[in-house]
């Protein structure tokens, strides 16, 4: 009898341990607490339409942050993603709306260009051994300049294939954007790959200890180039989402997206020291930013205070990470 009880207790403690050790516990708790707070603070927060809006508002940064998460897990950082997205977005819009190229071909070319930038980042990080910060600072400026050289005007009159992801459909009276479904699918696929494939596990291994990973037979350079190229793919898809959401090709897009995506990754509990992190956490992190922006605006809090609170949240998130994983 007592042994049965103690086994149950052990099980319960084991469960508690798993929950407490789970990297997304903090982010999930923060998101829930924030949502409960805003639900009480403003009656307009708790509605399907409002949540759908928040999802639409975070979908671009959310998809950028998928790439950013992988890069950060490998102890890297990517400052170029917003500018690469702007370049790809402008090219997709321009090819389809101005050059008469088939919209799907335009999208494909735009995504390939974003992937080429990712691959270039990866090649410079591994080939010459440059720090990711410097490499992506360089490619950020290159992508920015190329966008400006191509056009400084907003591109309008897009075909419907380019704005489809911004369109909505109704579930029980709530309008859901196609793009948010795509974002969630991308998260699901990335989650599966990271957790259940050899390639995904080797991303963590490289991030945890690149030398140990190499000695274990992992082709670390190939993994890193693969991570940056995959990140480029995410940025290309984010470009399409950005174009679809705004309905234009905007050369001004993405100016703060690099830092916004890093914010989402950090709030999601991924460690900047590499080797540890959760892709689901990043989605939660992006949602935390969106929920705070929306909730504070509904409460009538000035924009500056919204920025202030985001800053405090980031510091809190990295502090929690550091304190809970102190060796």
């Amino acid at each position, binding site marked *: 009898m007592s042994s049965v009880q103690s086994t149950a207790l052990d099980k319960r403690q084991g469960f508690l341990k798993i929950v407490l050790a789970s990297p997304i516990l903090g982010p999930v708790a923060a998101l829930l607490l924030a949502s409960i707070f805003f639900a009480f603070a403003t009656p307009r927060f708790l509605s399907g339409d409002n949540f759908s809006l928040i999802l639409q508002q975070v979908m671009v940064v959310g998809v950028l942050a998928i790439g950013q998460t992988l890069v950060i897990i490998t102890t890297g950082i990517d400052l170029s993603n917003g500018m690469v997205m702007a370049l790809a977005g402008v090219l997709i819009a321009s090819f389809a709306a101005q050059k008469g190229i088939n919209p799907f071909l335009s999208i494909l070319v735009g995504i390939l260009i974003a992937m080429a930038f990712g691959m270039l980042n990866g090649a410079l990080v591994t080939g010459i051994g440059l720090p990711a910060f410097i490499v992506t600072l360089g490619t950020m400026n290159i992508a920015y300049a190329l966008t400006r050289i191509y056009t400084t005007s907003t591109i309008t009159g897009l075909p419907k294939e380019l704005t489809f992801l911004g369109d909505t459909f109704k579930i029980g009276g709530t309008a859901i954007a196609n793009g948010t479904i795509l974002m969630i699918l991308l998260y699901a696929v990335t989650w599966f790959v990271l957790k259940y494939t050899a390639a995904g596990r080797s991303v963590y291994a490289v991030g945890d200890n690149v030398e140990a990973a190499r000695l274990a037979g992992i082709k670390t350079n190939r993994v890193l180039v693969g991570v940056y190229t995959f990140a480029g793919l995410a940025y290309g898809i984010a470009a399409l989402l950005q174009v679809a959401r705004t309905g234009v090709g905007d050369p001004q*897009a993405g100016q703060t997206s690099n830092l916004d995506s890093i914010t989402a990754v950090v709030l999601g509990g991924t460690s900047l020291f590499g080797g540890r992190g959760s892709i689901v956490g990043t989605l939660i992190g992006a949602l935390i930013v969106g929920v705070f922006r929306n909730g504070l*605006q509904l409460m009538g809090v000035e*924009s500056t205070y919204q920025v202030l609170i985001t800053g405090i949240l980031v510091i809190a998130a990295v502090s929690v990470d550091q304190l809970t994983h102190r060796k």
Partner: protein
Amino acid sequence: MPAPRNRPQPPGPAKVVIALDTATDPQEAVDALFATDNFAAGTLIGQWAAKAMAGKEPIIATLDLAPGITVGAQRHNGFLQGMGLATGLTGTTTDLATAKEVVCAQDTHGDQTEGQTAMENCLSKNANINLVYTINEPAAFGAYTALKNQGKDKDVTIVSVDGGCQGVQGIVDGKIAATSQQYPLKMASMGVEAIVKFAKEGVKPTGYTDTGVTLITDKAQAGVDSKDSTYGLANCWGNK
């Protein structure tokens, strides 16, 4: 060998410093300023909007620039004063005035995506917003997209400031109701002319030269001077 004492010395390098577009703080830090009066630009769209609302109670969202920037405060405060919702404001503060009719105010950094997000959240806050002030046309287009997605683009009036060619096209397309057009090219040409005059004749430019602002709208209101979008397109700056 020392220079002969009585040789005539060349005059020291004569200097003139001018500012274009945005005032230095203090303005006297430069000899002359060539800029648009952003407060007047805001006042114009405010006066127009007051007439255009025609007795309807205004429920306003303001999509502003960013904290502490004179241009953003001048346009915003000019708009409120033009609407008759505030009095005694001038273009010298960086603080945004407010009024009870303004139900939502949000920074957009003049960015289209941020403008769209801000407008969406403002509509969640108050679905009855019927007048939107925007810091510039990209923010206005973002607001328009948000309104259109919710089927409200026909019921809400958007006003803006800048009058670049893409912005005036927004008037033609019916997305923006009125905008105050500015003339950055004129700022540049008047500035260069002033320097040429100084170099040739030694006449130093001084003080503030207003390079002018014109209200562009296709829905002219009695008592508010304006030109139509055809004039706006003929005089706009930037790529058409």
